[in-house]
Structures are given as C-alpha cells and as structure tokens.
C-alpha cells in the first residue's frame, strides 16, 4: 500500500503544473544573480584558438567584425562583441564593423561606445561602423571585391571619402581576419563558404550555443580558426583577457539551471520506468 502511495505521489509529481516548473527555473536564475556568485572555469580549445589568432595580429592591421545578430541573441552575443572589442583595441587593431542583420549595427555601435573610450579609440580613425546591408551572400562577395561600392556610406550616413581609415581599404580582403558574431543565417557558416574558402581568409566566430555544434566540422577542417559558443564562450574569453562581464556573471545561474534540467530529465525517466514496470 505504502509502495503504491509512493508510486502515485511520484506519478502526480511527474504531471505537476508547468507553472511550478517555471517558478523553479526562475528561482535558479534569480538567486545566483542576486548573490553575485562567480566561478572560475577552464578554457576550451576553440576559445583559445580565437584568442591566439587575435593575439598574433600585428598592431595597426585591420579586422572585419561582422555583427550579424539581433536583440533575441543579445545575452549570448553582446558579451562576446564587448570582450572581442576589448582584446582588439588592446592590441591596437583597426576594426571595420558591418552587419548582414538589420538590428545588428545599433548593437555594434553600442558596444563600440562602451569599449572604445577606455582605450582612447576614435571613430573613423581606429574603428568604423559601416551599418547594415541586405543581400546576405551577395553582400559578402561584393564586399570582398569592392567595399566602397557595397558600403558607399557608413551607419551614420557619412560618405566613404569622409572616413579617414577607409581611404586605405579597397576590399574586405585587406582585413587580416574576419570575426563574425552571428546568431544564425547569414553568419559564420556563410562567411566560411563564400569568403573564407574562396579567398583563403582566416575566419573566427562567435555563435549562439544553438548553432555551435554545427561549427565543429569547420574547426576540425581548419576553416574556422576559433569559436566562442554561447555565454560560456564569452565567459571563457572574459577570463582569458581578465575583463569580467555578463558572461562570467551568468555562469553560476547557468550551472544551477543545467543541474535542475538534468534532475528533471532523470526524475521524469525514473517515474516513467516505475510506471512501465507496474504495467
């Protein structure tokens, strides 16, 4: 009788109102954020690969930073944008930023406004935001041939000839590396397919965790120099360059929720097995 009662309780628990599950998840995120707890972590090879590639660039060289994301992916990709700018500016790399996603340029500009003053970097001399261009792969190839024709004006509608750092640039291929912070299509994959492989350019990526597993074949083939995956990737990079941000701040909350989801899966399957055995 006691066994059956316990089994019934487990079965009832397995059919609990989902709003209680939502509340548990909310608590798992809110409490760690409130306590401000932080955790150190080991650095994975894909993150180290990107760090080494950027660290090896000559000061004064150009990097193309593609801000191919929207507010829906901001918590994962904006910290990456920030920490990459930190590293690039610290190495005195000149940055040309553009976006194949309409919401990208304001977020890229927000990141520039947050980081550039810390290093005394000036718009138009050390970095430029070329804005958004619709056309996906066509824009990539067009930029690789003639950047001025593709982006005749920057995000602020300033004509090409009025931006000092663009006068030495003919095409995207003048950059030593492309770093794409992307939320999906078009993004890192398309940069690899259209520009990286065709012109032999080095590509580094920052992607949402959803798309990260698909990038591993490109890492193994050498088409992708390095990769930041999701908020954890941003956290690892923040730790590497000793600039803690939202990435590191979110890791304890992330850990709590992951453990809770694993507990959910294990509990639900234990109950499933009990029910199956009874039948």
């Amino acid at each position, binding site marked *: 009788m006691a066994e059956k009662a316990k089994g019934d309780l487990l079965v009832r628990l397995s059919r609990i109102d989902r709003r209680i599950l939502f509340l548990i998840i909310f608590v798992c995120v809110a409490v760690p954020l409130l306590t401000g707890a932080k955790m150190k972590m080991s650095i994975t090879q894909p993150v180290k690969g990107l760090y080494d590639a950027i660290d090896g660039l000559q000061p004064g060289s150009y990097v193309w930073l593609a801000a191919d994301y929207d507010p829906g992916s901001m918590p994962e990709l904006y910290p990456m944008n920030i920490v990459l700018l930190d590293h690039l500016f610290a190495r005195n790399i000149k940055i040309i930023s553009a976006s194949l996603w*309409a919401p990208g340029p304001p977020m890229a500009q927000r990141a520039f406004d947050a980081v550039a003053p810390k290093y005394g970097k000036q718009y138009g001399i050390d970095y430029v935001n070329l804005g958004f261009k619709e056309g996906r792969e066509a824009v990539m190839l067009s930029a690789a041939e003639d950047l001025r024709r593709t982006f005749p004006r920057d995000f602020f509608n300033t004509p090409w000839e009025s931006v000092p750092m663009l006068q030495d640039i003919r095409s995207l291929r003048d950059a030593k590396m492309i770093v794409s912070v992307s939320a999906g299509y078009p993004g890192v994959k398309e940069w690899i397919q259209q520009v990286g492989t065709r012109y032999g350019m080095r590509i580094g990526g920052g992607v949402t965790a959803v798309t990260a597993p698909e990038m591993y074949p490109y890492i193994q083939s050498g088409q992708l120099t390095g990769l930041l995956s999701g908020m954890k990737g941003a956290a690892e990079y923040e730790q590497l360059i000793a600039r803690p941000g939202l990435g590191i701040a*979110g890791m304890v909350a992330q850990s709590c929720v992951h453990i809770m989801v694993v507990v959910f899966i294990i509990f639900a399957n234990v109950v499933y097995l009990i029910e199956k055995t009874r039948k």
Partner: protein
Amino acid sequence: MKLIKPAAILLVLVILASLVAGGRLSPGILGTWVAALLTLAIFSFLYKDNRIYKLAEHLFIGVSAGYSVSLEYWNVFRPNLWDPLVRGLHHVTMAHVFSLGGFSVHLPYFPGMLLLFPFALGLLLFARFSARLAWLSRWSIAAMVGSYAGLAMIGALQGDLVAQVRANMIPLVAAGSLGGIRASGNADDLIFAFLRLIQNPLIIFGLISTLVYFFFSREHKGSLGVVSRIGVWFLMISFGASFGYTVMSRVSLLIGRLHFLMSDWLRVIP
C-alpha cells in the same frame, strides 16, 4: 464609452511626451521603465495567454516591421540605388549608339543608368498585390532565386562538400597517439590517451555510417542495415549534444533578461 480606453492611453502618452520634451523626465529613465513593463507584459504569458501579452506581441510586430523598413531605406535604397541614380541624372548626355546610312542614333545616357533595371525589378515585386499583374513579379523573384541559388551552390560546393571531405581524409591512427597511452601517468591521462587513440577511427567510421544512413536507394538490411544503425547512434549523440547546447542557449537568454530587470530597472545588483 468605447473610446475611453484608447483616449486614456493617448492622454498618458501625450503627458509622458511633454514631460520628456520639457526636460522633467529623462528619456533614459522613461526608456528603462517602458522596457521593463514590456518585459513583464511578455513574461505574463507564462501564467496564461492574456490581453496585455497580446498587446505587447502586436506592438512588437509593428515596431520590428517599421524598424526593418527604415533600415532598408537608409542602408540599401538610398545609398545603393536612389542617390547614385539622382547623381547620375544631373549628368545626362546623348550618347552615340550607332550610325546607319548617314543617320546617327543617339540615346540619353547617364552614369548609373543600369540601376534602372534593379529598380524596375524591385517595383515589379509589388505586382503581386494585383491578381491580373501578379505574373510580373516572377521576373524579380527569378532574379533573386537564380542569384542566390547560384551563390548557395558554390558556397556548398567549396565550403562544405570539398573542404569537409578533404578534412576527413585523416590517418586511421593519429600520430603519437599510441605513445600517449604508454606515457600516461594517471587514470585521467590514460582515459584521454585512449580517447585520442580511437578519435580518428571514430571520425572516419562515424561519417561513413551517417552517410550510409542517408542512402535510401537500397533497403537498410544486412550489413548495410548494421552500418546504418551505427550511423543512427552517431546521429543521436549529435542530437543530444545539440539539445544540451540548445538548453544552454535558451537559459542564457533568460539570464540576460533577468539581469536587465534586476540591474538596470530595480537596481538590486550592480
């Protein structure tokens, strides 16, 4: 009576706008409160579908659609089409095309004239709204589809097919992997040395078995069936990995929103 609610909303908006215009309310503070209330409105869906969520949802669709149109105007239409055409129209000349038996044919020409073609094709897209003229939009669609089909093809060919097949041509035993087993000092090192030893054969066989699974021209029986089944196991591992990463991704988005509410709005965390 029906107009009271929209009138009240309009009144609140007018009051807020005049407070901001008069410098009595900082746009930053107003913006944070608006963002926070909209965030809570959307989160209210978790309790149940409700009118406030629906209002926020439709507001979002309108705002995002209007945002896209404005961006297209300033980032594509003006710099890539309109401005070059207008500049060119200031330099119209009569260009000699050909001569025939004493007659010379001249046609008007201006720099950037070819842009009239994509302009026309772009406008033809809107023919879709007319049942009688909708067939004209096919020309524009064909131009887009043809271009992007060609681009996608060459991208898939050089970036995915050739490069990935080449990258899988690796030795069955990675150099130094046997030595790694002998040199292992502890249990962890031994485990990872073993994983490194089986790495290459797993990659080779994993790819082959996955491709065999997708080969549907023959029934998956016998040895083909066995290899196909192993391919399914590799696929399940990759789907499990993808699911784990998807959970990670979604949780990160929630962390971002709660961080905004607690930090920027309520200011209970730095």
